[in-house]
């Protein structure tokens, strides 16, 4: 196990370095001079030159990259030239919103996907299975902004049960906070459950053909017990991966959903930074999000090895 972890860690380092390099180049190599962007109308050649010298923009590009990376490794991601907030402050402020959204969305998706997958696998090929497989397939073709619009139309415009947009912190008004989160997390859950259901269903059908399931049936165990106790855990390996990857992805903020429902999460922060050309925030947050995704994948790999001993001993 230690060897497995060490090898995965060794792979992590070059990937993270490449991620930082790409983030830096996106922000630095693209057209548009940061100094002009900051100064705006007041840009005179002297002002621009002074600011460039001040920010180190006149240094060679590799030097700028190294000094930026050096600062990042010491926990200094820079400071927005628009709001004066540091990148870490801005992220710390927005992260709870994105994490709450991600958790609620995953819970919703699992709550829809897992029971459906079990029922479908138990009677695979039956009418219910065929209907749900078809529905899941159709749902995969519904973009999130589309289901967001539909949900807003039905629950906010027609029925007026829930607010369409807005946010209050959980500490101020827990009920109100959850009400604001219902539609956004439902939107994401609707996009995620088909994947969960398809994966778990096909893994479960494979598990149900194993000999020990036949033995359990022969022993006269109840079908529900076989499904939930004997078959669910060995079938959930791929599900763990999918859920882990989804969590990694959604930590980066669900850009569309956060924008449509006006939730102040990481995704909105990034869209805002792009709108105001706030390069420091942009490269800092993108780096954090991408690194978070890479590390989340690493954790999923480890978890996978814990759940399935064949991976850490075998040829994986």
């Amino acid at each position: 196990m230690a060897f497995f972890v060490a090898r995965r860690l060794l792979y992590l380092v070059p990937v993270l370095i490449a991620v930082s390099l790409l983030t830096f180049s996106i922000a630095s190599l693209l057209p548009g001079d940061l100094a002009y962007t900051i100064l705006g109308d007041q840009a005179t050649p002297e002002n621009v030159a002074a600011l460039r010298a001040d920010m180190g923009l006149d240094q060679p590009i590799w030097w700028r990259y190294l000094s930026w990376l050096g600062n990042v490794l010491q926990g200094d991601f820079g400071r927005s030239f628009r709001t004066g907030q540091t990148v870490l402050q801005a992220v710390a402020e927005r992260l709870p919103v994105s994490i709450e959204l991600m958790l609620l969305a995953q819970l919703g998706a699992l709550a829809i996907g897992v029971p459906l997958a079990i029922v479908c696998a138990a009677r695979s090929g039956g009418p219910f299975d065929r209907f749900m497989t078809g529905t899941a397939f159709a749902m995969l073709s519904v973009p999130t902004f589309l289901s967001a619009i539909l949900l807003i139309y039905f629950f906010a415009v027609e029925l007026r049960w829930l607010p369409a947009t807005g946010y209050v912190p959980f500490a101020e008004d827990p009920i109100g906070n959850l009400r604001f989160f219902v539609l956004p997390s439902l939107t994401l859950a609707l996009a995620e459950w088909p994947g969960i259901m398809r994966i778990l269903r096909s893994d479960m059908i494979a598990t149900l053909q194993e000999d020990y399931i036949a033995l359990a049936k022969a022993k006269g165990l109840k079908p529900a017990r076989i499904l939930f106790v004997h078959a669910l855990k060995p079938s959930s390996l791929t599900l763990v991966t999918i859920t882990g990857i989804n969590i990694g992805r959604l930590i980066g903020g669900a850009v569309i959903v956060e924008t449509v429902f006006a939730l102040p999460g990481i995704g909105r922060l990034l869209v805002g930074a792009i709108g105001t050309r706030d390069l420091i925030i942009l490269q800092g947050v993108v780096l954090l999000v991408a690194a978070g995704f890479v590390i989340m994948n690493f954790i999923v790999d480890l978890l996978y090895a814990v759940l399935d001993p064949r991976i850490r001993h075998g040829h994986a």
Partner: protein
Amino acid sequence: MATLELTLDEGLQARPLKRGRRLGPLFWAAIGWMVLVFAVAIFADFLPLPSPTDMDMLERRAAFSAAHWLGTDGLGRDELSRLIHGARISLVVGLCAPVIGLVIGGALGMLAGYFGGRFETIVAGSMDVLLAFPPLILVLAVIAFVGQSIFNLTLILGALSIPASMRVARAATLTLSRREFVIAAQALGASHARILLRELLPNVILPLFAFFLLGVAVIIVVEGALSFLGLGVPPPISSWGSMIGEGRESLDVAPRLAFLPAAAMFLTVLSFNLVGDTLRALTDPRQGAL
């Protein structure tokens, strides 16, 4: 471009030839919808339609009528005409971007799968890096700096679709290069180029083409999402995404302004997914067994 032409020929020939009987009515309905959307998008300028940008302030949000079959939008523009012209944007971006991914990713994947070794490690590693970025953020950031245009949008979405094609091509090449016909060709002294182009390419292209159709569906959705946020194609060009975005403002008075383009996009994405998935299941024996 030679590769691209080969792609389409192979895909079109293989379909009716071997697999005509096993494809259900849904498959053909999806093909039918795709043909319809393609046809109206290509011939939009010749169809007897009002201009998609002419505003009629007296007929704002008009209901369905003989003059405006699907009514008008918030600025009195003909909804049907805007839908049809919007299909052009979705299809141009949705087809061109995956082609970029297909050609570059397919070539990289085949080379990586065939030669293996350090080249494969580097290619696979750099794809992992590209996949680590939240795709929408990457597109938004690049678009914000290079400017909103259909060309830029296609290029960046194409670059982002390279990793997926590369993985499919590499996986297919890996299994194929251990097969007898490749070993036979090697034993006969065929060059690497010959093996790659004459032996492997014809076999890799079918799974890659099936995957290409799924890629089209993904790109249409991403383009829609960007335009929905107002960061896709620049106005006044109408795109399904931007129409849904505009329709959102009038959900309470005229929900159809959001629902009509939404339905068009859903049906198109579903069609590409359906056809792509059917072809994928047929070309991938492992999936078919499930």
